[in-house]
């Protein structure tokens, strides 16, 4: 079975948070912990690579939206990198991308 893991890579002079596996009620606390730690370190924006995430539902969205709200207080953005159809569809349905959550196909498209 695919195990869930989160890894932080320093790339293009910023931290890229790479999630691997399915984000649901069981695994979203791990994502929450990672994002909270980054927030505590005072990062100005999040880069979240979800290309290896094949499943996302409202629980994972809740964690991402919560972090986005906190970043929003300092005009920060959450950049999501994914081309996964299921993940794109969920973000689309949620309407969250109207706020400070931006979806990109490639890491190169994320502003530094």
């Amino acid at each position, binding site marked *: *079975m695919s195990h869930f893991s989160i890894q932080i890579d320093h790339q293009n002079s910023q931290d890229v948070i790479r999630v691997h596996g*399915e984000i*649901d*009620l*069981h695994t*979203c606390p791990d994502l*929450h912990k990672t994002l909270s730690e980054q927030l505590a370190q005072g990062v100005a924006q999040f880069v979240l690579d979800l290309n290896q995430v094949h*499943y996302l*539902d*409202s*629980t994972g*969205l*809740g*964690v991402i*939206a*919560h972090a986005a709200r906190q970043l929003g207080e300092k005009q920060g953005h959450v950049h999501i990198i994914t081309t996964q*159809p*299921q993940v794109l*569809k*969920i973000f689309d*349905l*949620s309407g969250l991308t109207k706020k400070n959550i931006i979806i990109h196909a490639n890491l190169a498209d994320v502003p530094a």
Partner: protein
Amino acid sequence: MPSPQRVQLSIPASAEFISVVRLAVSGVAARMNFTIEDIEDIKVALSEACTNAIQHAYQADAKGQIEIEFILHDASLEMIVQDHGKGFNTTENIKAEKSNSSPEDFGLGLGLVFIQSLMDEAEINSIKGKGTTLKMLKNLSTHAA
């Protein structure tokens, strides 16, 4: 007319079993020849229903079981998710209830919205103190579609 085939699944109301439910339903839906996109939609709707039963139905210390039934109709998959938890008033404004929620609750109130938009039919029945039953239906898209 033969009665439709049924698959039943019962899991503890605990987060680590939602992925088991997704695996099982992906097998059922694949056998029915749903498209990959439809299978993904079905997995999300069913996960949302289980998530609600786990998060809202039971007190943290008194976890019960969640009963899931798949009814394989000729042209649709019916899914029934049932808990024996506290139930809720489905006619109340659910959003209003959300405003009192603790800041540590990340629920966006999107679960039932997703179920409604991803499924062809969804019907919720809840009795306070008895539990909640959610019925969902996903139609097999015809080849013309």
